């Protein structure tokens, strides 16, 4: 290209170096005034004081694969508490030689979840895939057929148990919650009263007390000799509890719908079931995606409360390791590890819900 102006003139036309690029950004965002400048400096100082020591603790001085005595000699993090006990943290009491089975079951679950993320895959075949997948997972966990040694559910623990409680808890609680919400709006007084009673009673007690009741009081009420599996009891408590909360959120969505929608549905002759199925619920449930997801996320985290009724979920297997004198005192490392696992679960849920919201959005 031919030059129209001399270089010196071009140079003088450019904005000063201090107001563009990185420096400019820093000036306009971090040092635009005395107050912000002070805040920036304080923050930088804090970061300087905290990040390098934490980094040094976690990565430089840390011990990754050694026994506990090596850990006690070092100033850094003792990640070997995780590497040395990894299989117990993740699989609990599942027989050591057969731990590939829960691993396979979990892989299958993750695979199905991942595949189901895409709404284009939501077809009948996916439903069948889930049914087959769940049966296969159950088979791997329980055993007893195809030459797999049977493993009773009392030995399920660790991550598979956490996933079992959350995945089944959430998928069963959601439809139950929707039904309860519809019941609460029903014109039949008995049905309405029943739903209101259920929702208010369950919401009126903490999950811990429900779990306690299911594990301590409930067995005393059963006829002698009849015992119901501990996991099943906890699972039921989680489902009942979460459903009550989802019901209220969904009710919010239903009340947010304009009356016109109901009238429009009636005017084209749709019955109650079709009105709900085709007109109301798709819109109402879409509105309440964000609060629903926060309930699901908190329910996912709440599954860790089963610790108090001695189900060996992820948290309980970790706690048990910490009471071994060999590893006592390295709780920080272990809890960080557990926190990362929970964070991954929660973050992917909220991430996915945002994606879903965007896809379902009808606004332009």
């Amino acid at each position, binding site marked *: 290209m031919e030059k129209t102006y001399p270089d010196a003139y071009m140079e003088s036309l450019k904005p000063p170096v201090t107001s563009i690029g990185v420096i400019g950004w820093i000036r306009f965002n971090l040092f635009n005034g005395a107050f912000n400048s002070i805040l920036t400096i304080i923050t930088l100082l804090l970061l300087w004081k905290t990040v390098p020591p934490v980094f040094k603790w976690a990565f430089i001085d840390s011990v990754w694969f050694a026994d506990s005595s090596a850990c*006690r000699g070092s100033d850094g993090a003792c990640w070997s508490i995780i590497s*040395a*006990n990894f*299989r*117990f943290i993740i*699989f*609990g*009491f*599942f*027989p*050591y030689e057969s731990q590939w089975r829960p691993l396979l079951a979990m892989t299958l679950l993750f695979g199905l979840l991942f595949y189901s993320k895409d709404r284009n895959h939501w077809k009948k075949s996916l439903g069948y895939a889930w049914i087959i997948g769940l049966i296969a997972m159950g088979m791997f966990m329980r055993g007893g057929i195809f030459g797999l040694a049977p493993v*009773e559910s*009392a*030995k399920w*623990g660790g991550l598979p148990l956490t996933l079992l409680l959350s995945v089944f808890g959430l998928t069963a609680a959601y439809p139950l919650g929707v039904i309860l919400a519809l019941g609460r709006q029903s014109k039949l007084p008995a049905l309405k009263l029943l739903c209101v009673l259920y929702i208010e009673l369950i919401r009126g007690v903490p999950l811990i007390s429900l779990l*306690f009741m299911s*594990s*301590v*009081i409930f*067995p*005393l009420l*059963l*006829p*002698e*000799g*009849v*015992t119901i599996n*501990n996991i099943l009891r906890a699972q039921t408590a989680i489902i009942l509890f979460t459903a009550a909360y989802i019901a209220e959120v969904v009710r919010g969505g239903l009340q947010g719908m304009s009356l016109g929608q109901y009238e429009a549905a009636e005017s084209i002759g749709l019955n109650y079931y079709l009105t709900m199925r085709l007109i109301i619920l798709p819109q109402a449930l879409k509105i309440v995606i964000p609060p629903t997801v926060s309930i699901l996320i908190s329910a996912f985290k709440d599954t860790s409360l089963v610790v*108090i*009724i*001695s189900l*060996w979920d992820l948290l309980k297997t970790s*706690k*048990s*390791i*910490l*009471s*071994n*004198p*060999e590893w*006592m*005192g390295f*709780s920080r490392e272990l809890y960080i590890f557990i926190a990362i696992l929970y964070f991954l679960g929660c973050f992917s849920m909220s991430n996915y819900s945002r994606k879903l919201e965007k896809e379902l959005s009808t606004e332009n």
Partner: protein
Amino acid sequence: MKFSKVSIAMMAALVIFAGAAMAGETLDAVKARGHLIAGVNGEVFGFSMPNEKGVWNGLDVDTARAIAAALFGDADKVKYTALTGVQRLPALQSKEIDVLCRNTTQTLTRETINGLNFARVNFYDGQGFLVPKKLGVKSAKELGGATVCVLPGTTTEMNAADFFRSNGMEWKPVVIEQTSELNKAFFAGRCDCLTSDASQLAAHRTVAPNPDDYVLLPEIISKEPLAPVVRHGDDQWYDIVNFTVMALIEAEELDVTSKNVDEMLNSKDPKIMRLLGTTGGMGKALGLDDKWAYNIIKQVGNYGEIFERHVGKNTKLGLARGLNDLWTRGGLMYAAPFR
């Protein structure tokens, strides 16, 4: 709703079945099931805890294994149910478990109001104090005004309160829910002393940055006889559990170990012959095989072996026998005669 005749009959049968609690019922149920269900703790090192492969270990676990060996001749026929402090008694009452081997202290109210029977004690524990040496305290009586790290709930907190009140001393409890966090607080200097069951204090001391800087005070301020527990109302089952613990003790007294038990079968000592079932009748009297005690000792060992394996000198706990030594050596372990 309509009940069919069959379902009404079934419910009636259930009610009748539920009403019938008779001696021998537990033994029959366990035998029919093919394995023992034992309630354990799961978080107490040396007593009941899974190892990194998920295999249960400990003194309480071995007590349960001994019962299984007596019943089935196979110590592995036990399923463990980990229970919290709140769950343990209801679990036993509701027959979820057959026996509770979960470091449970024998008390009057548990025997009476809770309707439980405690078998022979398998570990005598007691509450003690751990202090830093630099505190210069020689006796728990000098702890007036101290801040004390203690676990909440259980009897530990109440025992400490009783101790300080009865000695007219002030104290400031620092209550922390979890053992490992409690330790951290203590070793970081948050409190002047740490109180817990003496058996556990030994383990806590080993994880100190420098164990030699800490010392156990001589006072034991509470009695904690820990024993396996069964329900009221099934005397035969109680006898089996009771004599299983005593067989462990008797075997140690007679120097019968898991290693020499086969040679001991040829022993001419009438006590050993009765214990091992070479001259018979003892097992039959309990409703078991005459080889019941032989199976226990062969597969699990005698009390001394169990003690040394899980809590003794060469373990992380490093406990001395103390009260848990045989009566012949100044301890409290004493078995009724096997005759």
